[in-house]
């Protein structure tokens, strides 16, 4: 049995009170409940405050470039389908610099999980607007208020028929654990957007602000109803639904690529006879 201590305790460089702490806790707890040991998972991230997470728990880790966590995660997953691949990165990393990879990962539907630590701000670079910063929100770099409309990862994902789309809140560990477990258990790309207070740079979307708005989707909510999900995707400032907003049974990429069946690619030996046979085709 995997224990929470297996994942270790690290000093972090996060600000006291940062919403990343409960998320880290929930990740560990979910892995314990999933009985996944540190060496069975690969924690992938980009660059940002959220993206430091792989440094703060014992597990395999890949801390890559800003915006590029999803490609790296998918590459690792293709190389070794026995690894559970979990991505933790910021909203800027995942939806800003990494926007194109977000679209592609949804469409590709490899079996990985993205947890976007959504603090609606660029934390590590000290408070510029992120794609999730709300219109009108004034920051140092947007002193007149943000002009671009807020990005909506839920609407984009549901609109593109993503296979698993959910939201959670860093103020509700129990909910996060439940969501992370469901995301990891889902066969295909799972998006979990987590509302995360940034105590240093986001004075608008605070813990209290989220607390007031986040509500659990009712039991009779049907996440397989695409239209309902699309409608839910538009709720935000007046109430933020948390829970599984949408899911479907689209087969994952791995199940459709024959080469991936069997041993992890990275562990296979070269079949020289087969290479020889390929070469002879050029004669």
């Amino acid at each position, binding site marked *: 049995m995997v224990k929470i201590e297996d994942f270790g305790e690290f000093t972090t460089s996060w600000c006291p009170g940062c919403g990343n702490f409960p998320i880290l806790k929930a990740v560990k707890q979910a892995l314990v409940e999933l009985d996944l040991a540190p060496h069975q998972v690969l924690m992938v991230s980009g660059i940002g405050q959220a993206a430091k997470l792989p440094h703060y728990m014992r597990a*395999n880790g890949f*801390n890559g470039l800003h915006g590029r966590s999803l490609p790296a995660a998918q590459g*690792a997953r293709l*190389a070794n389908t026995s690894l559970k691949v979990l991505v933790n990165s910021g909203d800027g990393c995942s939806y800003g610099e990494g926007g194109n990879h977000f679209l592609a990962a949804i469409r590709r539907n490899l079996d990985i999980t993205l947890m976007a630590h959504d603090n609606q701000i660029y934390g590590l670079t000290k408070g510029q607007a992120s794609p999730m910063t709300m219109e009108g929100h004034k920051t140092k770099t947007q002193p007149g208020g943000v002009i671009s409309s807020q990005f909506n990862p839920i609407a984009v994902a549901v609109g593109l028929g993503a296979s698993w789309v959910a939201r959670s809140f860093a103020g509700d560990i129990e909910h996060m654990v439940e969501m992370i477990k469901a995301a990891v258990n889902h066969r295909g790309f799972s998006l979990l957007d987590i509302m995360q207070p940034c105590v240093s740079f986001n004075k608008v979307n605070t813990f209290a602000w989220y607390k007031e708005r986040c509500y659990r989707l009712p039991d009779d909510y049907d996440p397989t109803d695409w239209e309902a999900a699309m409608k839910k995707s538009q709720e935000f400032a007046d109430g933020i639904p948390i829970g599984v907003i949408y899911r479907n049974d689209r087969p994952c990429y791995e199940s459709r690529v024959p080469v991936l069946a069997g041993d992890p690619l990275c562990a296979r030996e070269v079949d020289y006879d087969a290479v020889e046979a390929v070469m002879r085709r050029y004669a």
Partner: protein
Amino acid sequence: MSTASRNIVIGGEAGQGLATVGQLLTKSLARAGHAVHVTQDYMSRIRGGHNTYSIRTGPESHPAPCDAIDILVALNQETVTRHKADLAPDGVVLLDESLDAEGARALALPLKDLAPKPIFENVAALGALCGMLGLDPAVPRTLLSQNFAKKGEAVVAQNLEVLDKALEWVGGSSHGLAPLPAPGTVGEQLMMNGNEAISLGAMAAGVRCCFFYPMTPGTSIAQNLINHGGPLGIVVEQVEDEIAALNMASGSAAAGARTIVNTSGGGLALMSEAVSMLGVSETPVVIAVAQRPGPATGLPTRTEQADLNLALYAGHGEFPRAIYTPGDVPECFELTRAAFDTAEKLQSPVFVLTDQYLADSFRSVAPFEVRPATPPVLPLKTVDDPAAYKRYAFTESGVSPRLMPGFGTALVLTDSHEHTEDGHITEDIGIRNRMQEKRLRKECAIFGDIVPPQRFGAEDAELLLVSWGSTKGALREAVDLLSAAGKKAAGLHFAQVWPLNQGLFLDALKAAQRTFCVELNSTGQFAGLVRQHTGFAFDRLVLKYDGRAITAQYIVDAVLAADAA
């Protein structure tokens, strides 16, 4: 016209099937035992325009393009108009009777008669060409039978009939061309271009993942892996952009799978940040870059060697890398395979830098030994003391044992920051210094493997011609031509341009009276690299940047002009 070789140029619009005729003919030639060398010149369009497919062949022909045309196969009038001036004194235009030879010596084919339907015109042309070259008819017959076998016996029979008819017709015509002399006995030959050999080299190296975004002339490397990779256990994924390609590669390679990424200069430019990531995270990826002329979109289907500096310096910060520059098809195979081992020894990005000319140049080559002479260098799956494992452990060589995550309880943390031995972020001055020195030190791990430049020509040469990459064949021919013209000339070809080991070449450079650096670019990038690292300045640069492959004659003319000056 040399008696021992022919230069056949097929010209026409994109979409007219010149590559089809060309490929059938080259395969027939190779099977008949001739040396074959193809240069493809095409425009960035799908239909129309003007393309050529040039075949230089004969029992002992040179693996390089040449200018004078022995047989010009004109699929349209424009081909005659454009190229008739390039015909050798006894050169012939082969064309349909409906076209005008514009005064050139010509053999006008009654294609309408020979081919029952337009679709058979290619085979009729093949027949005519085989006849003119004096090939054993059994060779194209067997080839066609194999090629059309899938389509049923009737189709095979129809094609053979057209072929025979064309052969017969040519036999009765008077084109005045001597048949090619019979080649000596050669073993089985493959017909393969540079990109195919790179793909095969990757397969022989046990490549597992290929990520790419389409970009001419790099795309066909992935295409070959797609065509053949399934049974070999290779996954090839066309991704959303070049940045995704190399970052995905960083993930798969860090997970332990041998990984290749193919692109051209513009794609590499986009990958620059990820190249740096491979450097700091010590992740081995082979990056195959088929160059085309820039800047930016430039001449997207043409050839150039102007991205050496980019391959040398792509990425921010400083970290080791290696750059192979194969000079021919066998080197594409060998050096791509070697690149994977080098990447693993160096735990860093390794480039295979070619260009459109070589990428698309089909050549007759002897089959390769797909089994490596030494076992491949691979990451570990498990370690003895998992709890003590550190991904970036300090070692004397700088190389830390590299472990695949997931096969044991040892944990692997791959990181893009400056980090401690176990991969955690650090800002410590002492560790920073040691890590940077460790990374740079790794270059020594491959220093003994550097491919020595290959020398040909006179031992005591007065004129020394230096080249790198795809110009090898032309350089070699130029040395032969200069020698034949009474010059003491030699060539030195670099199939690896980084790292440089001056012990392998500096004496030769200094010993020559006049040195020439031949490059397909406008600034002499390799000459600059040599000077930067050895202080040696070439006497002359022989440059070309018009997007077309270089010929021996171009080099000879430049050398003689400089020598006369």
